[in-house]
């Protein structure tokens, strides 16, 4: 009767079929209803333990997973590597095996190296959820971005989306490109040549270097964060020039469709990739993304961990 996630991990949107993605969206709908209740908790993951293991800084993803797990009644433990045995030189695998031996049923991992969650998933018995690995994938972010688009636009078919900014260093962009094209959305990458990967042939996308041309007739404009901590600044002449050429402003949005939706995975460098957000408030889906993110992560945790 029902279709389920075939994998017991969530490592990449590549592993998800369109049916599975739609199943996650449908499940998220039910969980969003919970946030309007007096008691926002349900007992579905009671007695299960989820560990948040973050080797990179994060506020919204970690908090979002924590709230999602707690609303499902799971116990949540947060490990920030700067305050853990990792600084004493413990290896990644030892850390994860220790967490598993302590009785964790699931681990949410963020790591600066691509492929780490997948490597871990082949070596442990608990569920592994990728919360961002290097430049490769950030599957729950892509799912919540798609879900926000679905909720605001009501469909995927025929939509035109522009992803603007530092595509080269963005795992969010990679996950989104995979998921959006799979759902039949036309994707345009917009950014300076230095920040767009050399080979985008297999991606099924259009590449545009001029922002005005890039946002033309777009239903959704997805601005990416300029990752200043990854030395992105050395790929562009100056932040000021980048802001002038690629910043999303009310003027630029007039070129897009009248009902254009603006998304940003956060945290925003205000005045650089997004300018004067207050003046296009009704077009912004940025806080929706945060709200829907909890529902998406509850759906993922429920579908992965409630059974078995």
């Amino acid at each position: 009767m029902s279709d389920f996630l075939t994998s017991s991990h969530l490592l990449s949107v590549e592993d998800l079929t369109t049916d599975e993605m739609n199943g996650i969206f449908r499940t998220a709908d039910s969980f969003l209803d919970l946030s309007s209740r007096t008691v926002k908790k349900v007992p579905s993951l009671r007695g299960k333990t989820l560990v948040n293991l973050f080797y990179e800084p994060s506020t919204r993803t970690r908090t979002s997973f924590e709230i999602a797990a707690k609303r499902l009644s799971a116990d949540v433990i947060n490990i920030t590597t700067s305050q853990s045995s990792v600084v004493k030189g413990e290896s990644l695998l030892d850390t994860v095996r220790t967490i598993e031996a302590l009785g964790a049923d699931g681990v949410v991992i963020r790591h600066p190296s691509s492929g780490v969650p997948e490597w871990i998933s082949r070596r442990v018995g608990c569920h592994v959820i990728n919360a961002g690995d290097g430049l490769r994938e950030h599957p729950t972010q892509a799912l919540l971005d798609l879900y926000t688009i679905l909720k605001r636009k009501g469909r995927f078919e025929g939509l035109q989306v522009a992803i603007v900014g530092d595509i080269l260093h963005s795992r969010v962009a990679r996950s989104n490109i995979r998921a959006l094209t799979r759902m039949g959305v036309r994707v345009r990458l917009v950014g300076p040549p230095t920040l767009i990967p050399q080979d985008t042939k297999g991606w099924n996308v259009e590449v545009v270097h001029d922002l005005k041309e890039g946002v033309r007739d777009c239903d959704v404009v997805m601005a990416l964060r300029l990752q200043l901590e990854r030395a992105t600044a050395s790929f562009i002449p100056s932040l000021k020039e980048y802001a002038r050429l690629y910043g999303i402003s009310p003027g630029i949005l007039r070129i897009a469709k009248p009902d254009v939706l603006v998304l940003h995975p956060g945290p925003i460098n205000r005045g650089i990739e997004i300018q004067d957000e207050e003046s296009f408030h009704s077009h912004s889906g940025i806080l929706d993304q945060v709200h829907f993110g909890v529902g998406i992560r509850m759906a993922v945790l429920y579908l992965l961990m409630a059974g078995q």
Partner: protein
Amino acid sequence: MNSIDPSDASLPLRPDSSSPGRKILLESDQIERMIRRMAHEILERNQGSCDLYLVGILQGGGVLAKRLAERIQAIEGKPVSLGTVDITLYRDDLSTRASPPFLKESLLPESVDHKKIILVDDVLYTGRSVRCALDLLMDLGRPTLVQLAVLIDRGHRELPIRADFVGKNIPTGRDEVVEVSLEPQKETVALLRRTIEKDPA
């Protein structure tokens, strides 16, 4: 097995010609009369429909709750609150299943606070679904009271739960399945023997 309701002795166990092993226990007009009687009993016990809130347990209780609400409305001449709840997230067997079931949509248009809740299900069996629904209701607010209405009570309770309003008590074996269909004009209650699939090994 002893039946609780003496009238059970007269159950017309009519074999279904289209499906051998399936016996039709109740037919449309009998079911319609049962629903009508239950509506009157609910109104009598609660002295009218003031603050009544009929809540069907999905999947089977949704349609019955709607039918009872329509009856009550016809008798009292004013609308009665109606909703449905999906108890999947409160099930006690989630962690024993290979994969979790998909969720259905609960629809509760009004708050349950200060309401007289009539929980409605088609078949009362182990009582575990009712336990789930009670826990869910308590998480939603504080109803004045909760009563339980079921079309069929088939016995085999595993929890100390009983119904306040019963359409019919039907003694069953654990290897049997009670099938309720409330499709208008074609309502039936049938008894099937559970087919045990033989292990090929």
